[in-house]
């Protein structure tokens, strides 16, 4: 019982802050994991190079709140410096739409 309460206490604040993803955003999160994650999560080359150029705070795309849909689309298809261009076979248009929805989702205001 106490263990259950403790778990609940730990879970609550997290649930309060967590993004509640729409179906499309959640499909986008999956597509991100599959097509971008190897470079844009911890230990990936995208994260490393962005940290070098923009600083650590801006290096993880999933935590960014400033990315614009057109910019994401452009970078994916035309590449950026050493980010390779990704074809419509690698990232089909449906995945692209979902991805963009996920990366540009409105975020709850930061905790005070």
């Amino acid at each position, binding site marked *: 019982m106490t263990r259950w309460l403790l778990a609940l206490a730990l879970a609550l604040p997290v649930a309060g802050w967590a993004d509640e993803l729409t179906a499309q955003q959640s499909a986008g999160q999956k597509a991100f994991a599959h097509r971008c994650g190897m470079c844009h999560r911890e230990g990936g080359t995208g994260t490393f190079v962005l940290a070098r150029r923009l600083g650590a705070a801006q290096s993880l795309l999933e935590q960014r709140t400033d990315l614009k849909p057109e910019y994401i689309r452009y970078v994916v298809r035309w590449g950026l*410096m050493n980010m390779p261009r990704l074809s419509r076979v*690698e990232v089909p248009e449906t995945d692209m739409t979902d991805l963009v929805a996920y990366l540009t989702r409105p975020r709850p205001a930061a905790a005070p």
Partner: protein
Amino acid sequence: MKLILPPGVSHARFDQALAAFARVVGREWVLASDEDRETYLDLYSPGRDDSHAASAAVAPASVEQVQALLKIANEYRIPLWPISRGKNFGYGGAAPRLPGTVMLDMGRMNRILEVNDQLGYCILEPGVGFFDLWEHLKANKIALQLGIPGNGWGSVVGNALERGFSPAGDHSNNICGLEIVLPNGEVVRTGMGAMGDGKAWPLFKHGFGPSWDQMVVQGNLAIVTKLCLWMKPADEAAISIEIKLPKPSDLQWCVEALAPLRLQGAIEGLVRLTSFQASVTVPTLRSQWHQGTDSIPDDVIAQMMQRMNVGWWNGPLRLAGFSDVCEANLKRVLDRLAKFTKQEFPVTRMRGDAQPGPTTYPLQMVNWYGGRGGHIGYSPVMPADPKLVQEQFERTRRRYQQFGLDYSGTFYLDGRAATNVNLILYSKDDEDQKQRVRQLFQALIKDAREQGYGEYRTHLSYMDDVAASYDYNHNALLKLNERVKDALDPNGIIAPGRNGIWPKAYRAHRGVL
């Protein structure tokens, strides 16, 4: 990228061919906009983008679709270059040799058809990435090992078909049976798969009669739709011996010490000795160390080695297998090293199944000069002889210095042969430097030829030069390859120019960039 048509094909005919492709795969999977073409350019190209620009890409979802596409390609004389994931960076990426070629992007055929841990193999479609197979192994707790290249973003099949390798060895050696589609659309299974339901297809390499798998590797006779690959069961234990040698001249004795142990089997994987540079280019920028346009001088190298805590030549050397055998081999290796040096070699013991997974981290080495970067690999194969290896290194390094480029080399010893992979890094936006890169590359091909060494694999732009260096009896082997090519592919539609092999329809393009 603007449209470059396949040679001899009018715009109208090209459009008709694309429309016919679309009837097979659906319009969505014929990729022919400027933006689409851009995504198939060689990101690291050391020359002009249009030297290897595709006119379009088409992406089939089944063997039947591949057959139908080949039929149309023959009818309209459209060359098709297959890629599995097309991440062949350093060797041409997702681009074709001949401008105007249509890429046959196999990325949608990405099923893991079988992984068998009892008999140690998997059967894959071309689009399966190293990350996909790795995740499958972890998710299903399958205790098999995977040879993973430094760039883990590619496909298991494409990498094996390029004769890619890792410290686990030459990945094409693990191919055991293919399903291929010939230029005329016929489907063939090789080896034991040539039997209707051949039970030993992924188990015994040769079947009955001549063996075809290696005819397809680095070749252009067929499209691979399934590949059976041997995988090794996870080891019980592994030992990592840290090799960190302070001087450039230490290479020679180290080869003398280790090559015989590899030949006798005390070391199972390849012995990898890599120069300091590899540990510096990935995490740092050149401008942090040196501003000059010359090759990085020795005093700066000394600083790099000290600050990054690396040697001039570096291991690690990995022993893996049953733990008692590993311990016995460890003693052999350390005893042997002690005959050559007083240096200590720290040892780390690990679980055998603690293999690191695929990563993209090393890709940022092309950022070395700060902006848009690229690299090409120059990789001759030579005897694993200590003196010859030392001379090869010194000759190669002098060439880098002559052209003002930073030396970065690795020797992979398999006991008999040494594969010497050299990376040439450059800035894509520095025309003068790229010019020097091209000069260096030609000089290196010539040097290797003089020594009787040849490259195991090369960038699209150098395929003709390297093929020409295999020159016994007036390039008799190349001529044989081209006779076979013409017999099986009379219209020359599959990957014209791959590894210097030109079908008669496009032979005038040999050497033209």
